[in-house]
Structures are given as structure tokens and as C-alpha cells.
């Protein structure tokens, strides 16, 4: 076989078709027993095989796609199969612990699926508090105007040059005379900070007007807020997922009346840098009248990437 037959599309004008050429470029389909009986050394590297039937043979399993290895010595299973990472065999994708270890130094996972007040550093004004309840972590403001509760995950960082996502499952029964700020790298709810890189959800009302969440983001140069149709006022917990695609968009994804709804914000999207320690995950809630307000957090999640050289990689043995 010439290179043009193996590596390129067949051209009717330059390559006269023959059974050998067609076989070189087409799937060999057969039972595991049949494919296992073939003499691989006479075939072209990269040739695809598809197994049918019900009986395994010689390590091959039915309903799999295999490719002939570059050295022509063995068949490599295509990864497009359901595998559990529960054995070190190629067919299973390798052991799960190895997958975890291989990503040890590059993966951030904040798991607040079952949040507790003790997970966070708490900053308050007035008699505000973050308290463990049976169903949720309850953020309660004080009773004076401006009283706030701020919770922050301590330490850590996040690479804003890579995709990440933040999600909250919770709600507030108040949508007027409140300020709420949540997300990644967000400022405290009681202050306005500079243009530090961040993304998340915000809402502020002092006029008594019912509010919706806005998506906010800053790339360190500019900052802005994009209004969404997502109502703050809810009577039960609701999932809000904020997805950060560096330099492209910050998306708020959620369900509205059973319809999947995505708000896409494209301006001032962070695309580099890291989040300062202690600012990575936070939720702040403030009352803007002399009435106590509540925000209930059933779950909180964040996933993304570690900056290079934060941790050293692990060598997989």
C-alpha cells in the first residue's frame, strides 16, 4: 500500500480501486472469534475493526470498535464505550484512583453539597449569622439597615484562565430592600471593591422594587452587570448554575417553568489570572431596611482548575 492509500481519502482519478485498497480503508466487521483469528501483521496500522455477536474471544468483546496499533501488533479499543475505571485494563479506561491522581494538581473541587457553617469564614454586622439547620445553611441578617452576613471558603485559589462553574441550590423569600452577592472572587456584600477578576450573581435593591439576579463579571479591566429574568423571590430552593468560559462568556443556567433557560453574558469576562485566597467561593446577604432577611443555602458547589505550579503533579505508578 502506498501512503496515499493509507493516509488520504481515495481519489477516483489517481487511485484505481481494488478490493485490497477498499479493505485497507474500511471496517473489518465480524465476531470476536473471527477478528481474533486474523493475522494482524499483514494489515495496515490504524485499520478499524467492529465486533458483533455475543461471545467474547481472546480479550475482544462484542459491540466494540478496535483499531490496529501503530506497530501493527495488537488491537486498541476505542474509548467510546461505557467503562467504569474499575480495572487497569485498557478496556476499562484504567483505574479510577489513577484518573484522580493524574488530575490531582490541576483540579479544584469545592463540595458544599451538604454545607455547614463551620466550612466557612463568617463576617457579620449586627446580629447576623450563618446557622446550621436541618435542611440548609441559613444566612440570617440582623434587624438594622445594613446588617449583613458574609460566608467565605478559606484559602485556596482558582485559575480564571480555565473553565470553571459555580452553583447554588437555595433561595430567599425576600426580593426587595436586599443586597445579595455570590460567586467566585466576589467582593463582600457590604463593600464595593475595585475591578478584581470575578464572576457571579448579584442583586441590590434599596427602592422597594422586586429584583432579579444580574450576572456580573470583571476581567480586571472592566466590570459590568447583565440583567437576567431570574427572580430572586422564591418559595423553595432552586438550582442556579453559573458557568465561566474564559474570554467568551459567563452563563447562568437554570430551569424556568420547566424550560431550560440560559443567560449568556459576554462582556468583561475574565480570561486569565487567579482568584486571591479566601475569595474563591462566597455568598453575602444584606438587608437594606430594618427588617431581618433570610437566604437558605441547601447546596453550594464549585469546580475548576488549579493554576500551574500551585501543586506539583503526581507521577502515576
Amino acid at each position: 500500500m502506498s501512503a496515499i492509500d493509507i493516509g488520504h481519502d481515495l481519489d477516483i482519478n489517481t487511485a484505481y480501486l481494488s478490493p485490497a485498497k477498499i479493505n485497507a480503508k474500511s471496517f473489518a466487521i465480524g465476531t470476536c472469534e473471527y477478528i481474533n483469528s486474523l493475522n494482524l501483521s499483514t494489515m495496515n496500522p490504524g485499520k478499524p475493526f467492529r465486533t458483533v455477536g455475543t461471545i467474547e474471544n481472546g480479550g475482544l468483546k462484542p459491540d466494540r470498535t478496535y483499531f490496529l496499533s501503530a506497530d501493527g501488533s495488537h488491537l486498541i479499543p476505542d474509548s467510546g464505550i461505557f467503562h467504569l475505571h474499575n480495572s487497569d485494563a485498557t478496556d476499562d479506561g484504567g483505574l479510577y484512583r489513577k484518573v484522580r491522581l493524574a488530575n490531582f494538581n490541576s483540579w479544584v473541587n469545592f463540595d458544599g453539597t451538604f454545607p455547614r457553617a463551620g466550612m466557612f469564614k463568617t463576617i457579620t454586622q449586627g446580629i447576623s449569622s450563618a446557622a446550621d439547620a436541618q435542611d440548609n445553611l441559613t444566612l440570617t441578617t440582623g434587624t438594622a439597615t445594613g446588617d449583613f452576613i458574609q460566608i467565605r471558603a478559606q484559602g485556596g485559589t482558582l485559575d480564571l484562565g480555565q473553565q470553571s462553574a459555580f452553583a447554588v441550590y437555595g433561595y430567599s423569600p425576600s426580593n426587595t430592600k436586599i443586597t445579595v452577592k455570590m460567586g467566585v472572587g466576589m467582593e463582600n456584600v457590604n463593600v464595593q471593591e475595585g475591578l478584581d477578576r470575578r464572576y457571579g450573581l448579584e442583586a441590590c435593591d434599596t427602592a422597594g422594587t422586586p429584583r432579579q439576579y444580574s450576572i456580573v463579571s470583571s476581567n480586571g479591566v472592566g466590570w459590568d452587570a447583565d440583567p437576567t429574568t431570574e427572580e430572586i423571590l422564591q418559595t423553595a430552593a432552586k438550582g442556579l448554575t453559573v458557568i465561566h468560559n474564559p474570554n467568551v462568556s459567563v452563563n447562568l443556567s437554570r430551569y424556568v417553568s420547566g424550560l431550560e433557560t440560559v443567560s449568556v453574558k459576554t462582556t468583561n469576562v475574565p480570561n486569565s489570572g487567579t482568584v486571591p485566597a479566601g475569595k474563591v467561593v462566597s455568598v453575602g446577604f444584606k438587608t437594606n431596611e430594618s427588617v431581618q432577611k433570610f437566604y437558605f443555602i441547601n447546596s453550594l458547589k464549585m469546580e475548576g482548575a488549579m493554576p500551574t505550579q500551585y501543586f506539583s503533579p503526581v507521577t502515576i505508578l
Partner: protein
Amino acid sequence: MTMYSRTVTMCKARHLRNYISQEIGYNVDFQFDYDKDEVRATFSCSDDYADIRICHNADDLEAYIIRRYGAFLIKEGIPNPKNFSMDMKKIGEVLTNPQLNKRDNYQDEYPKILSNEEWMRLKADCPNIEFENRIQNASYKKDEYQIRFGVWHG
């Protein structure tokens, strides 16, 4: 701050779900109704950013929506030929054209030469369609017709 917004309804919700990224400066709220296979989308932009590269006005917004999602738009006075969308794909065999790789919109136009029979069938389904070029053949063979049509990256 002047915000401009435009709400449109589009078809092929499941397909469109894969194409929600936007150009910088254009924000959007999508509402995917998979039962009706429709998407309600409210696009918005502003001409009041400090960075003039992301400032856009109402005309820019309309042009942007048509350029990026024109093939999906339904209602709003835009004709919806009865064999448009998926059926059109059957005429054009190109669904994953490599030319689309570096494009910034999700639709493209192709020229396609139809036989006389194919053209007559298309004309019956889409009475408003017009050919771009009539290709004369030898007298014993019927003329062919070149048309130009839009498909999306499939």
C-alpha cells in the same frame, strides 16, 4: 446607559443548545422548549461601554441575530418554507463542511446544481425560490439549475 434588546423565536431547540456562545458585546437569554422544539431568545447589547469595541446599537443587533441565527428564525414575518430546515439537508449532502471550521456563525450558504427533476420538485415545494443560474446542456439533455441555499453546521 442605552440597552437595546430584541426577542425572537427560533426552531431546532435541541440542536441550537450546542450553539449558545456569542460574540463579545452581545448578551442573550435563551429559553429552550424541547417539547415544542423551539427557543425563545432575547438578545441585548449596549452602546455605552467604555470599550468601544463592544459597543453595539439596535441595527448592529438585528444584523447580528440574522447573521448568526438566520437559518433558525421563525415567525416575525420571516417566511418558513414548508420543506425548509431538515428537508433541505437532503438536497445538499454537505453537513460537516470543513470550510465551516473557522466561521463565526452557525449557518452557511452553498451553491448546488440540481437536475431538472430536482429543481421542479423544489419549485413545487417552495414557489418563491429562484435559481441563480440556468445551465444549458446539449439538446438531448435537460437543463440544470444552480441554486444557493443556507444550511447550518450539522
